């Protein structure tokens, strides 16, 4: 019986978002006496106090919480050493514009996004997801950008032609129309902006 209670307490502490206090524990496990809960906690504390454990049960901020052992901090830092590209919305939007409209100049990207993109372009260049394709043959000869092989790898794409089109995604939202579809495909194009929420 105690074995089971201990195990329930263990999983509750493990899953809880914040340190779990005895009070909270008692309110979750109403069917048990506080003394039982305290005993289960004591046992757990002893279990996790064994040498060679990688997880510690600590009393913190009025409750109990599992933490990694401080002496392993160096190893844990290595977890974040090789961080893959993590995308914020603005990076993703910029990348999407370049992917779908390449070759494209910075001015064109900024026109579409309505904001300055210099910083994001630099980051994307550093991450090798985009590259400079050359200069555009217009006054000012602005740089033009396109996506890289690494971009394709990131999205597991064979080539640029495998990029899904906007239409293909939008078609998912609408059930196929049986009756009147056949006329001019122009309707599909103008309908594009309409569906935006």
């Amino acid at each position, binding site marked *: 019986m105690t074995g089971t209670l201990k195990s329930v307490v263990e999983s509750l502490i493990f899953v809880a978002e914040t340190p779990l206090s005895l009070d909270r524990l008692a309110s979750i496990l109403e069917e048990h006496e506080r003394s039982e809960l305290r005993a289960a906690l004591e046992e757990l504390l002893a279990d996790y106090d064994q040498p060679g454990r990688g997880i510690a049960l600590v009393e913190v901020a009025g409750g109990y919480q599992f933490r990694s052992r401080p002496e392993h901090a160096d190893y844990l830092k290595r977890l974040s050493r090789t961080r893959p590209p993590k995308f914020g919305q603005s990076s993703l939007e910029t990348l*999407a514009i370049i992917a779908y409209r390449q070759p494209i100049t910075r001015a064109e990207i900024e026109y579409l996004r309505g904001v300055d993109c210099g910083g994001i372009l630099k980051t994307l260049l550093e991450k090798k997801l985009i590259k400079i394709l050359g200069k555009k043959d217009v006054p000012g000869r602005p740089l033009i950008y396109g996506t890289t092989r690494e971009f394709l790898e990131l999205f597991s794409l064979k080539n640029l032609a495998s990029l899904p089109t906007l239409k293909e995604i939008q078609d998912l939202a609408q059930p196929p129309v049986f009756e009147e579809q056949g006329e001019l495909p122009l309707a599909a*194009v103008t309908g594009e902006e309409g569906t*935006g929420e």
Partner: protein
Amino acid sequence: MTNPPSESANLFNDNHGSGYNVHVGAFEGPLDLLLHLIKKNEVDIYDIPIAAVTRQYLEYLELMKELNLDVAGDFLVMASTLLQIKSRLLLPVQVDEEGGEEEEEDPRAELVRRLIEYQKYKEAAQQLEVLPLLGRDAFVRSSELPELKEQQLVDDTPDVELFELVEAFRRVLASLPVQTFHEVGSEQITIADRINDILSLLQERDSVAFEELFSEGTTRDYLIATFLAVLEICKLKMVKLTQVSSFGTIWITRAVQDAADAHEGEE
């Protein structure tokens, strides 16, 4: 409660008595309904009495209408498939002019294959549901660990999917004011430009969807130039237009495929 016609009340009678219509709408689709009818009639799936099953199927659709449920198009498509099979079974085997050598397959065969396949995945779905579901049966640590707060933890794979990329692009386009968006392509576009564009697209790929040619621009000039360009190169027999199914996508392919490309196009 509407009383279903007495005949159908018999047909749909099961352990639940005539309270069967509680189940109305519980079918996932025409295949699900058909499987139900086959089980109910306790018939061999490999020897479906099409006439009886079709009648019951249609009666069910009637019931759905009576209950003011939308009969989805998929159910109607199946109804016509059933009727077609039924009529083919009634017809004497025709002597085919083109391919007399092949044995006529049982008209029910494809339907049976689909039903068996469907049943397999229906059961697989039930098995998925009883797996320990994260967030329902099993939980992971959700606390923030203070010692690592400032560090972003790493995933094995980057946290971005192709779908998100497309969605991001859609967001950009959706946020554009329509008026200004039109100005983007306001430069003069000629039919010759579009002919060149299309032909160079066809250098890269074997086929291009008709719609795709219109996806880039939104100005009237652009659309018209593109459309006329397609007509022009068709007339010049430089490209072929094909459509696999009615109302399906129209495909534009080069009229003459390069020998070098031929192996790519093989199926």
